[in-house]
């Protein structure tokens, strides 16, 4: 069983339009982002030198990235010394194949998983499923998403688009198919739902032979991996199974053990708005007699070296996935995570996806435009990623990628057409007439009404589609001012419209 998949998602404007129509989603999101935002602000205010702490955090990550090859070699050597086996994967396919091969080698048909962005990014669950291996998500929200055959909508609280009644219904309907069923008297109280998840997953934790995790940080000089979590499902996966496989993006490296200090102070306050998250686990390879006795680390590229080569965009690799930028983003708050069509939504997703994948497909190319450039994301980012600057730079990359096109981009067509029409008064009159006609058609077929009862255009076909896809364009008046002036002789013979 797997969750949904983002492949084939429509471009941001289309997906956002659908999301905007979903009032449940919008109110859940508004509540969630406001709550986390307020909690974050309170615990950040407690730290007097927060700005200096941000500078230190940004410095730690920047220094690690600038000499990444050296640190990766050091990390590999430290891991091997500590008893771990290191694998390298150029892309998603290679990484999934490594994990599947290791699972097969141990003869298992299931693995337990700690929530990990990297494994979601590479589509590991689907790849394992194709190999006959079930990958059980053990984070409560990820489990809700997986059981509901759904997609995550937020980095930190992936099931934020579901309310308690829906979650109860998913548990009642699906838990029995994949293990211990939900109790018959299950209510929609969060504490009761959490207890059902505990009972359901405990059975899986106790029998699991192989676990898969990611890592929040990888310390080069000591070979230490770090997982930051809340529920204890991470500790279960990292402790009880015999074999542990961690898929780690190459940008997770920090140089030294003491570099963890600013990171572990910045992350929980920025992320869940806590002084410290309930559980942080660190391990360096194998500890005889304690925890997994076979430890694998898969170092993953999958576009990271592509992003690293971008002199403006490479700072995005400092990201520690705290999700603070999502919670302050006015665009995200209204559209939710699904509209971004990626496991990385929100402002960071709008830059990270194009940097990792390039802008050749329409979906990714639409992401740098999913922002009003208000700058709130930069202000909260614990590692000071200047997201607005990278957004602007990525927009330029999108435009550049279309320079040679025979069919020009919508904006370019629209701007050219405007310049042509405005440059000559007869053409302008013609354009206005055409637009008035368009307005009448739109009133008939338009889907929306703006506040005040004015008709709004739905999606325009042709070159205008890119513009109206994300905006409710007021339908043009049937008669332009110029046409009205001519017909009524400056208003003297006005007896209503034609």
């Amino acid at each position, binding site marked *: 069983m797997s969750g949904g998949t983002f492949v084939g998602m429509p471009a941001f404007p289309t997906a956002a339009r659908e999301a905007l129509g979903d009032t449940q989603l919008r109110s859940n999101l508004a509540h*969630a982002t406001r709550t*986390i935002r307020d909690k974050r602000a309170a615990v950040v205010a407690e730290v007097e030198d927060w700005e*200096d*702490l941000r500078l*230190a955090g940004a*410095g*730690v990550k*920047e*220094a690690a990235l*600038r*000499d*990444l*090859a050296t640190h*990766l*070699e050091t990390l*590999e050597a430290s891991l091997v010394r*500590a008893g771990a086996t290191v694998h*390298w994967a150029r892309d998603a396919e290679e990484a999934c194949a490594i994990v599947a091969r290791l699972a097969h080698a141990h003869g298992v048909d299931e693995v337990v998983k700690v929530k990990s962005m990297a494994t979601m990014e590479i589509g590991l669950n689907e790849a394992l499923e194709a190999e006959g291996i079930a990958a059980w998500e053990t*984070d*409560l*929200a990820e489990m809700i998403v997986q059981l509901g055959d759904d997609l995550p909508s937020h980095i930190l*609280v992936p*099931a934020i688009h579901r*309310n308690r009644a829906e979650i109860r219904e998913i548990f009642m309907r699906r838990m029995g198919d994949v293990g211990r069923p939900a109790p018959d008297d299950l209510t929609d109280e969060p504490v009761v739902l*959490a207890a059902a998840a*505990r009972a359901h997953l*405990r059975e899986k*934790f106790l029998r699991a032979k192989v676990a898969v995790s990611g890592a929040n940080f990888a310390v080069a000089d*000591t070979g230490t991996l770090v997982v930051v979590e*809340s529920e*204890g499902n991470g*500790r279960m996966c*990292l*402790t*009880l199974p015999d074999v542990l496989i961690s898929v780690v993006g*190459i940008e997770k490296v920090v140089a030294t*053990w*003491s570099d963890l*200090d600013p990171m*572990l102070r910045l992350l929980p306050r920025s992320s*869940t708005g*806590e*002084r*410290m*998250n*309930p*559980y*942080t*686990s*660190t391990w*360096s390879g194998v*500890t005889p*007699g*304690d*925890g997994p006795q076979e430890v694998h680390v898969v170092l993953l*590229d999958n576009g990271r*070296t592509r992003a*690293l*080569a971008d*002199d403006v965009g490479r700072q995005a690799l400092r990201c520690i996935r705290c999700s603070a930028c999502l919670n302050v983003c006015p665009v995200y708050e209204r559209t939710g995570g699904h509209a971004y069509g990626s496991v990385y939504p929100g402002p960071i997703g709008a830059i990270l996806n194009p940097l990792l994948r390039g802008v050749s497909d329409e979906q990714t190319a639409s992401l740098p435009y999913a922002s009003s450039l208000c700058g709130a994301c930069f202000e909260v980012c614990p590692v000071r990623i200047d997201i607005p600057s990278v957004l602007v730079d990525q927009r330029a990359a999108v435009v550049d990628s279309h320079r040679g096109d025979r069919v020009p981009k919508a904006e370019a067509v629209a701007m050219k057409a405007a310049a042509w029409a405005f440059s000559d008064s007869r053409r302008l009159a013609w354009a206005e007439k055409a637009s008035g006609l368009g307005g009448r058609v739109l009133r008939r077929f338009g889907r929306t009404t703006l506040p005040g009862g004015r008709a709004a255009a739905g999606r325009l076909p042709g070159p205008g589609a890119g513009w109206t896809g994300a905006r409710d364009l007021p339908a043009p008046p049937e008669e332009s001012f110029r046409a009205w002036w001519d017909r009524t002789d400056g208003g003297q013979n006005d007896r209503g419209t034609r």
Partner: protein
Amino acid sequence: MSARDDILAAVRAALTDVSPAVAVPEAPRAPDRGDLVALFVERVEDYRAVVTRCNEADLAGVVAGVLGERSSVVPPALGLEIAGSVVDDGLSAAELDAIDAVVTRARVGIAETGTIVLDHQPDQGRRAISLVPDLHVCIVDATQVVADVPDAIALLDPARPLTWISGPSATSDIELDRVEGVHGPRTLHVVLVGP
């Protein structure tokens, strides 16, 4: 070329325009907060963990009182007699699941964040024993409490597995309602020993 060589080559090629040397600003230190032990207690309680303070002479009695009738497991070198407790000698996860409580020591307490760090030496035991039972009674000595995260990092040995614990396990995944206790111990009871 192997994936390793390819990736390392791509990393080097991506960075030809930058110098590897960056000055990393030093992380600031929290100001002096006065009584660290009092701050530690206050911040642990903020996570809705239970804290009992006692002196060394009363410790055994206090722990026995917290455990009550519950079955319990202890690490091989807890340094405290607990009547009826099982000493861990490599119990299976299923065996641990049948035990109600665990009693351990700790390595460091962090006042600023109300965090306890275990480094799983013999007075704390394997990671599994402080994870599977539903009640974790954790004995912290007042002398183990440090001011902030950097002090803890400096004391801890990265070669050892570490578990940083800040309150009981928790989730806010359902409509952001905080629920204490999901997979880890649902109750954390800290016994702080000191004058």
